[in-house]
């Protein structure tokens, strides 16, 4: 009886945004009289961070400090329509809507500043620290706050913007399946190192190495949060989870976390991530949204690593110790395949 080491690989791509389009998102941006901007949405923040990413997108586009922007979501009386937070669409669809809304508000902001400075709006730039100045002449400047106050109380001008982003609905051909599913794809490649105990059938993941291509990491900490958590969700899906352990029979379905198995905090393993950024032309600042895809390569990479370790084909999920043991026995013992890529 022995512990066998295995290494497995998988690579995937992931479609960004709701399949076939037809899923609009709207955003509204407006300024208070002292130059603080509110972004009003009906997106849902499930923990993925759409409020924070939306805030960054708005602040960058407006050219104002991020502290001066606040995202308000989701109230159907105030937030304009959005299809929802699913299908890796939040950042892509709502992000584009926010950029448009913020662009319109920025145009109003620069026009109001131009009136105060008695210059042409097209000569003005923002410094990202709360000031607007003439391009090449930083001393001819006015603060965003003073501009907003002037716009509200002197000029009678709104500093507001509206944005909508809609990918038109694609047809699907009934005979060929021709369609325009999405416009951009995120990518991942992942290597799992694990051990298999040929006496118990237990699989223990030791190490994850990954490369995720996300278009642009709009907020690196949020990207890492998604990738680390998502990859671990993939480990859980591959090795532990099911609501129907005897699928397709429905018996012995778990009803709590004592019986619905998931790894705990003590089971986490080192995960080394490489983030690649090939910006997608139609995505906000090129960012694709890493949320959904991160678990996907983990499942097959684990199954491939189990095969590498003991020579058992695990083609049904989850890969339980029972399945591994039965496979080892059917083969007449463990059949280590040797380290790949050596």
């Amino acid at each position: 009886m022995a512990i066998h080491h295995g290494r497995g690989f998988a690579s995937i791509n992931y479609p960004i945004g709701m399949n076939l389009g037809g899923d609009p998102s709207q955003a509204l941006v407006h300024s208070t009289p002292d130059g603080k901007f509110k972004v009003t949405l009906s997106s849902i923040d499930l923990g993925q961070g759409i409020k924070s990413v939306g805030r960054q997108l708005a602040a960058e586009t407006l050219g104002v400090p991020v502290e001066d922007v606040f995202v308000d979501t989701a109230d159907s009386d105030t937030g304009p329509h959005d299809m929802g937070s699913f299908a890796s669409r939040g950042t892509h669809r709502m992000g584009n809507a926010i950029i448009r809304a913020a662009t319109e508000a920025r145009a109003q902001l620069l026009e109001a500043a131009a009136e105060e400075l008695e210059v042409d709006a097209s000569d003005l730039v923002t410094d990202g620290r709360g000031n607007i100045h003439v391009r090449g002449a930083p001393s001819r400047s006015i603060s965003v706050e003073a501009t907003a106050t002037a716009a509200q109380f002197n000029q009678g001008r709104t500093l507001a913007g509206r944005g909508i982003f809609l990918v038109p609905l694609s047809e699907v051909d009934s005979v060929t399946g021709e369609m325009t599913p999405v416009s951009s794809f995120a990518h991942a490649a992942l290597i799992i190192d694990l051990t298999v105990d040929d006496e118990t059938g237990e699989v223990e993941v030791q190490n994850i190495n990954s490369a995720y291509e996300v278009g642009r990491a709009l907020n690196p900490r949020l990207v890492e949060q998604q990738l680390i958590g998502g990859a671990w969700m993939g480990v859980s899906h591959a090795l532990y989870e099911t609501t129907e352990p005897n699928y397709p029979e429905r018996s012995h379905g778990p009803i709590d976390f004592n019986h619905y198995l998931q790894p705990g905090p003590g089971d986490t393993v080192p995960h080394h991530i490489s983030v690649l950024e090939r910006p997608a032309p139609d995505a906000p600042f090129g960012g694709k949204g890493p949320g959904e895809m991160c678990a996907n390569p983990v499942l097959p990479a684990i199954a491939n690593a189990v095969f590498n370790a003991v020579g058992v084909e695990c083609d049904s999920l989850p890969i339980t110790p029972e399945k591994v043991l039965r496979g080892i026995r059917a083969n007449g013992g463990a059949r280590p395949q040797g380290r790949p890529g050596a």
Partner: protein
Amino acid sequence: MNAEYRKDLFADERSDDFDIIGKPVIRQDILGHVTGRSKFYDDHAFDGLLHMRCVRSPHHHARIRSVDSSAAERQGGVVRVLGGRDVPVNTNTLLSLINFGRDDEPLLATDKVGYVGQPILAVVATSVRAAQEAVDAVKVDYEELPHVLDVEEALKPEAPIVNEEYPNNSFDYFDTYDHQKLRFGDVETAFSKADHIVEGEYQMSPIEQAPIETCGAIAAPETNDRITVHTSTQALFFSVGVTAKQLDVSSARLHFIGGTVGGGFGGKVDSHHEPLAALACLATGKPVKYMWDRAEEMQVGGPRGGERWRIKDGVMRDGRIIARAFTGFFDAGAYTRLSSYAVQKSTGHLPGPYSIPNVASNVYCVFTNRTPSTAMRGFGITAVDFAIERHMDKVARAVGMDPIELRILNAYRDGDMKAHRREAKNCALIESCQAVAQKTGWRLSADAARASSKSGGGVGALGVIPETVTDDEGRIGERRRSGLAPEPFSGQGTRGLLPEGHSSNNSSAFGNAPQREDMEAEIERLGFIGAAGVPPTPQGPMDETASSARPIAPSETAHTTHPAGARGGPSLPAAYTQRPASTINQPFAQPPAQAPGTPAAQQPAAAEAESESATTHFQRGVRRPGVSRFISGSRRR
């Protein structure tokens, strides 16, 4: 845990000069979250809050003979017992909001139940305990019916009908077929030319989204005859739309508040709680909470559905995959929910991130007597990626090749034609493979290490839409009548041939243009540099379509000019592209919406009449009664 940013890769397409983008800005909501002060839906307190529990089916499949709730109604604390007849529009399908599919699921079952846990009555009481005790006191007389739990069993002629709206146990695509087809090239001929055939079957069991916060909603009367609903929904306006439809109230009376949710992962899209809580609120005039406990979340809430995928590959000795066929089954459970959509999403994903000149798939949305499945992270993709990537390793073994080198050899590159007839762009699979290999010391051949997504794509056969063999197999009802096998081209149906370059539509993948010029951001402020990074003109000519300016060579040339060096392997034998014209009919016309020959077998008369009215009355752009216009006015089939 550590992360490195490979800024060196694709640096020529990107400017990283930003104030805020790309910076680790702290989350806007983090202080509230880590101090436990963020308000989730269940953190809204109301005086006199009522609670709801449901009477649920103990059977996989049963007719409801009678329901007796009289004892329950007399119990202490019980305020109201609601049944299907109290719901103004009891039957709905989630995607009616985008006009996709027919209403097939009751909010509360009235005459039959299709799965264990299906709600029949909703009891509203002053406490959860009082509600649960009343639930236990309800007597339901059931007549058990035969049930089916396996997707392939469900497609057999003798299987019981799970869902009367779809009496063949499969979702109807285009009012014509019992599955979604993908046809690209000619898999049958390519299989006959391949050096190896590699086959496999892959199965994913249902899993639970497992959010920390269970699904739910609190509906409370608001002043001015409105209802405020605090909800855990992932899609606020989906929930507004479903509630307005099922309660038959104007959405002007609905005020939905959400946006701060304790994890969703896809399990909070079904909009089941809001209509029930709002209905109870309307019926009692009191605030009502309907919240799942953990057991309901795990066994009654829609899981990620089971999926079964079979893959057959035709592979050349050098590792090049020349043909790939899929047969996929989505286990929808008893009702459609979102599974019909996932089938199309998965079809658009095939054959994975690889360029394969011949691809075919049949994918089914199958009804079985289990909890309806729904969305979950990676919906429509996770299981097929598991299947594809397991299969790629088997292919690598069959040809004796390094598994990463096999992926790189077959990886899609900019300019390649994808099986859904759109050109691949912005690819980065090869670089991802190289990056992870490099840092783990996985040694790649010089060719594989040198390959790039940006070069060598769109060459020869891989750059064009090939001449494509089609078929008309699997019309609605045919399979259940004749026992037709589910695989593509498994029957004796009429074959058609579509010419090289054929494209039936050119829908844009890119967004609409900004409605006013001043909403259009300057490209340089968005961080794109270089020609490859310039966004397309919104709504401009869609060069991702088949009718692009890229020259399409005559088929023989296209198949034989594939340079051996560019992709490290020889092209397909020219002979395989030749198909005797005599064996092939002309491409058949697109079947009419309701083909005269659509079999009525297995389809009860009433259902047939209804489906007919569905096709005649609910055409594209036409308002369907009871359908919210929140989301889309155009019909998706």
